């Protein structure tokens, strides 16, 4: 989901040239940070924009009180959105950075770029398996961005990683568990994993139900249609999830006559009922 930190009004005030210039200068850290986000948000794919974002990925000047690198995080997210393959090797290097949030943003960007060169480095972050996947004392996150890593491996199609990913279905953090089910379904096509996510739709926590909706939409698990429509969540979320199902169903059944399958029609009827 698009994360917009700024109102549209403010976003409209920049031009491409200004954003690039803002990102180049080193005095005003706030406007650098904003420019990096802006270039991704408005999909500025000009070579010069890519170049400054790649520089920002290695930036040392913008440091958060927790020792993190806010600008690097934003630059990584932006590079993912721009679909720039040149960014793959630098983003892979980011996976070794000490800042958890840089590693997470880089992982998510690599997922979007969907490049299998990232597989070995992503797999390495799973070293130690579930036993090592604990919370960092005093932090709200685990030692690695497991949710993002596992989702990325699923999207990229890293079938060689299934034996590493499978055990994460037992992880105590629900979102990590969902990510593992999602990836395992993508990598094996086994409905056992889709059903884990379907059961999650009936969970207690609204935030987690939303999460399972998005995961089911992302994998297009067609049997989930009814359960999605009945989930206690916003219709807008359910519609996005059903859209994912419909797209997958259509892409799997492309034929000469372009006839709609019964399953497609059923999903559309569910969508109609949620408008």
């Amino acid at each position: 989901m698009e994360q917009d930190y700024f109102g549209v009004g403010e976003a409209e005030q920049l031009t491409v040239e200004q954003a690039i210039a803002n990102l180049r200068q080193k005095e005003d850290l706030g406007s650098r940070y904003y420019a990096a986000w802006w270039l991704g948000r408005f999909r500025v794919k000009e070579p010069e924009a890519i170049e400054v974002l790649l520089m920002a990925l290695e930036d040392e000047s913008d440091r958060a009180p927790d020792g993190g690198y806010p600008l690097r995080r934003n630059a990584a997210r932006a590079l993912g959105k721009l679909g720039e393959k040149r960014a793959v090797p630098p983003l892979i290097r980011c996976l070794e950075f000490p800042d958890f949030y840089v590693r997470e943003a880089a992982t998510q960007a690599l997922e979007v770029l969907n490049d299998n060169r990232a597989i070995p480095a992503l797999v390495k972050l799973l070293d130690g398996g579930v036993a090592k996947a604990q919370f960092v004392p005093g932090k709200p996150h685990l030692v690695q961005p497991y949710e993002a890593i596992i989702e990325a491996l699923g999207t990229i199609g890293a079938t060689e990683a299934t034996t590493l990913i499978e055990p994460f279905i037992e992880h105590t953090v629900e979102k990590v568990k969902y990510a593992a089910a999602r990836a395992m379904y993508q990598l094996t096509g086994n409905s056992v994993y889709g059903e884990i996510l379907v059961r999650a739709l009936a969970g207690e926590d609204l935030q987690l139900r939303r999460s399972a909706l998005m995961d089911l939409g992302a994998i297009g698990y067609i049997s989930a249609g009814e359960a999605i429509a009945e989930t206690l969540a916003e219709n807008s979320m359910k519609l996005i999830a059903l859209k994912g199902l419909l797209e997958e169903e259509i892409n799997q059944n492309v034929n000469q006559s372009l006839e709609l399958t019964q399953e497609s029609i059923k999903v559309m009827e569910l969508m109609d009922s949620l408008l």
Partner: protein
Amino acid sequence: MTKILTDIETLIEAVNKADSADGLLEAVEDLAAAKAVEAIPTLVEVLGYNNPGAAVAAVDGLIEIGEPVVPYLLTNLDDYNYGARAWALRVFAGVGDPSALDLLLKAAVTDFSQSVRRAAARGLGIIRWSKLAPEKVLPAQKEVLQTLLLASSDGEWVVRYAAVVGLQSLAKTLATTQPKLVPEITAKFQEVMQTDSELVMRARAQLAWQQIN
């Protein structure tokens, strides 16, 4: 009578006192099941809570109560909470009362929330035209048609989707009363099938086209 009223007061009290998401959902379901006009203000209030399950139950309950809900909801629409407004638009759509027509026409193309535009476009397709004075029907239908055609080029796919669904319902109505307006709708379906950037839009337009032909 007194007994019934007391029961409804008890049900309302239960909604107001609910202290968990599940508790609220149950209380709203019970109150909605009473189908009583006294429940309207409380059910409308629930639309503004951030609890999608309870909101669905409240919407269903309000639609069941039907027309008496419309004037109350028209005067108590929340301009600031777009979540609540989207649910309210679903109530108008479900009741289909033409007195909400102006609001639906405006909301479908001007509301800043895509969920509100979506619900309004859907509602425009299911107006109960028999409730409108006969001489007002055709001009109103033409206005609905133009608005839905406009909404079918919204920037958000979900609004375009609702507009196609609305146009399909409208085409079904017009097929018997104003068949000469239908070709404009089928042409739009053809256009969406061939040009929309979203796969689901092309599929939905195809389904609409198949179902009215």
